[in-house]
């Protein structure tokens, strides 16, 4: 139950192996179809940042697996030239965990919406963070349910008027940043689709990080959320780097995360590298390579031993 606050780098975190293959550009990561998002949707910014990050990390399309749920934002895997799974609403993180553990050589990137991840997907979110599964989770947080044409999400501000709350929501929203820190995520950041350059760095940092990284991204919905628009954020976001924030400072991370008003911090709130990721801790993966590549079946000796104990 204890979460010691040590800050030592754990060993053997080789992050980027040397890449073979041709050097790629953003175009190489373009998916089979163009996004069908509304013109001006914040999600375009995230898509651009993600492709840029993949290029800069010198990853090959087949080395990457994007996993999403259902929602406008969850359509993203279709727009990236990489392996992808467009799963059920709320289940992306669970599916991604299975895929990551089955083939821990893949870079598994989970993308989706605030409703998908923090609403219906909340339980997987919680437990995946505490397990520190090596996933990079990009939440396109537009504080609304976009695809279902505008209802409150768990991050909608109190008082927000939507189709499901025509007189204003009476519920307190969650704040994903402190929640993720308390739940045990080891890389917790917030981005804004209006700040693509920083976003690229945050995503690269998340993919490099061994363990669970959450990047909650303000990705305004131009169609259903008038309260939290591109302009709203543009006028308010402030980079943590510029605020002198130390992402290894636990209290500072939490305090900064609660700031909301004229200055809304974006950047890396919290990072710890002393906790190994789940695949690193799992003895079955210690040797033999990805499970998915191992031969099937049981050796005759092992079979014999299994039967022996039944006799």
């Amino acid at each position, binding site marked *: 139950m204890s979460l010691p606050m040590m800050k030592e780098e754990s060993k053997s975190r080789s992050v980027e192996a040397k890449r073979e293959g041709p050097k790629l550009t953003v175009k190489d990561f373009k998916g089979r179809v163009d996004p069908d998002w509304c013109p001006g949707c914040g999600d375009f910014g995230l898509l651009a940042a993600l492709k840029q990050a993949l290029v800069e990390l010198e990853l090959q399309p087949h080395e990457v*697996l994007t996993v999403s749920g259902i929602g406008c934002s969850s359509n993203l895997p279709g727009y990236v030239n990489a392996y992808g*799974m467009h799963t059920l609403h709320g289940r992306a993180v669970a599916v*991604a965990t*299975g895929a990551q553990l*089955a083939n821990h050589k893949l870079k598994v990137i989970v993308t989706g919406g605030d409703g998908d991840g923090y609403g219906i997907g909340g339980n997987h979110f919680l*437990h995946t963070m505490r397990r520190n599964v090596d996933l990079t989770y990009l939440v396109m947080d537009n504080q609304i349910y976009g695809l279902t044409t505008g209802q409150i999400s768990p991050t909608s501000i109190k008082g927000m008027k939507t189709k499901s709350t025509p007189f204003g929501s009476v519920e307190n929203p969650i704040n994903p940043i402190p929640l993720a820190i308390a739940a045990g995520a080891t890389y917790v950041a917030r981005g804004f689709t209006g700040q693509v350059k920083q976003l690229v760095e945050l995503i690269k940092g998340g993919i490099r990080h061994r363990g669970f990284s959450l990047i909650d991204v303000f990705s305004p919905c131009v169609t259903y959320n008038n309260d939290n628009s591109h302009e709203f954020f543009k006028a308010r976001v402030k980079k943590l780097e510029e605020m002198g924030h130390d992402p290894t400072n636990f209290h500072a991370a939490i305090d900064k995360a609660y700031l909301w008003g004229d200055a809304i911090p974006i950047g890396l709130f919290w990072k710890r590298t002393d906790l190994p990721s789940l695949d690193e801790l799992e003895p*079955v993966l210690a040797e033999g390579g990805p499970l998915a590549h191992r031969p099937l079946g049981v050796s005759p000796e092992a079979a014999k031993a299994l039967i022996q104990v039944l006799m």
Partner: protein
Amino acid sequence: MAKFDLAIGIGGAAGQGIATPGDILARIFVRRGLHLNAYNAYQSIIRGGHIFLTLRTSEQPVLSMGDKLDVLLPLNQDSMDRHLKLMSAGAAVLYNGDKIKPGTAADGVQLCSFSVKELAPNIKGDLVQNTIALGALLRLIGVEFKPLEEILTIQFKRKGAAVIAENLGVARAGYDYATAHFKPFPFSLPDTGKKFAFFEGNQALAMGGAAAGVRFYCAYPMSPATGVLHWMARHGRELGIMVRQVEDEIGVINMAIGAAHAGCRAMCATSGGGFALMSEALGSAAMMEIPVVCIDVQRAGPATGVPTKTEQGDLWQVMGAGQGDYPRIIVAPTTITDCFKTVPELFNLVDKFQCPGIILSDLLLSEGRSSVDPSELDFNVPIDRGEIIGLNGDGPPANAYQRYKLSESGISPRALPGTPGYIHVVATDEHDEDGVLISDEFTNPHKRQAMHEKRMRKMEGILSLLEPPKIFGPGNAQVTLLGWGSTQGVIREALEKLAEAGIVANHLQIKWLVPLHSEAIQSIISQSKKLIIVENNYSGQFARYLRSETGIVAAGHVRKYDGEPFMPHHIVDGVKAILAGASQKYVPVHEVMV
């Protein structure tokens, strides 16, 4: 006792340590090459309450818990009070007379009272009565002391020589006391010279998974399926199987689907309530065309129901699981050994047809135990992973890869993430051959129809690979008994008893439920004079399904839904009542109060 057939009942409270004497006896039996069937009636309580373990052994295969008890070993007064009345002439009751008083026993029942105080005056704890009783019991059934000595020595090895010695002493005291005071049974426990193993259904399912090459197993604990998790957790590391306990069953099935898509054979097990939570995702596996195996170990429902009791009540749940039509394979193994064999069979099918497979077990199979000839536990099973392309670096196809290429079989070759050149996205939204969604911009009713038909076409291919059910027993029978899944053993035994009573019956057991060999069944049943369907549920779930697929209406039904499994005489009585025209539906009353 015409052929040798011995049934022992051990009853007491949870926490009284019934499992140990049960295990020791089972080991003694199988090491003598005797067959075994064990069923434990227990409750959803950790300490107290009442447990009743029935162990039955014979030189012939033992098909069910049977109808009678030869030995009763009540570990407390409650158990004595509940079960003494079940004992009839020739039976023996072994009990600690210090604490337990018998009521009135039927004539010819030997009441074998021993005194723990006398036989083990210096030993503390309640477990000692179990060991004494075990010693005495073995004496009664004509077993030398040596096998018990061996097993006790192994059993207590970790606890050191003193404990071994103490237990051996106590067991010996019981053994010797029985020699002096009790009348032994008129036989000695046979030894066939063979050596069997014994296991429970959940172990069999887990081992079947290991044999099939499962590399990823995940679960959320739920009785009576938890045994699969426990076996996997115990053996996963040595076998290279990743085992995960997940936050809930929704996480379980989705994680399994993720692992399966990445290329592992992935399996999970739960009971009905957990299965309900998984139902949405099973449809998603079918839509994304990802092979995954999910086991539903049925227990008495609805809702939380009776968690430690058996039922065959989830058939309609698994048939209807998830919205919309999608290809799925549903199989109900018929014996514990069949559990082992079914898993690799099913994995080959789901891999070939890229769809979910569901195994319907139940508490009776999964927590029941049976002997097995070790030669039947062949881990070297055929493995067919279906069409996976790009594995040998065979390079990308000339055209862009189409994950969901339309085909006559409904099968499209799949490529695993990580494979260079076969990039694609799988989706739970309806999609085109190339994986692009046809639920938004590219919506198209013709394509939707084609994709839906493609998926559903798989069902024909699957059926063609399933073994059709076969009739068992005489062709000219008066009556045909039809069951599915776990009831095979008890129905077979009922058949024998019916024959003894002059009623010629035969038997059709259905294992592969979906898709169903309707034509084969129709042609078999068309030969049958009278059909009686036997199932362990209230509403006749299989009878209704059978009618929907074949139009067959049975002349009678034997149904049980009190949480306990059928005993052979329940079926026999039901068949007689139905043949006599007394009723069309017969619901037996469970006589053993557990």
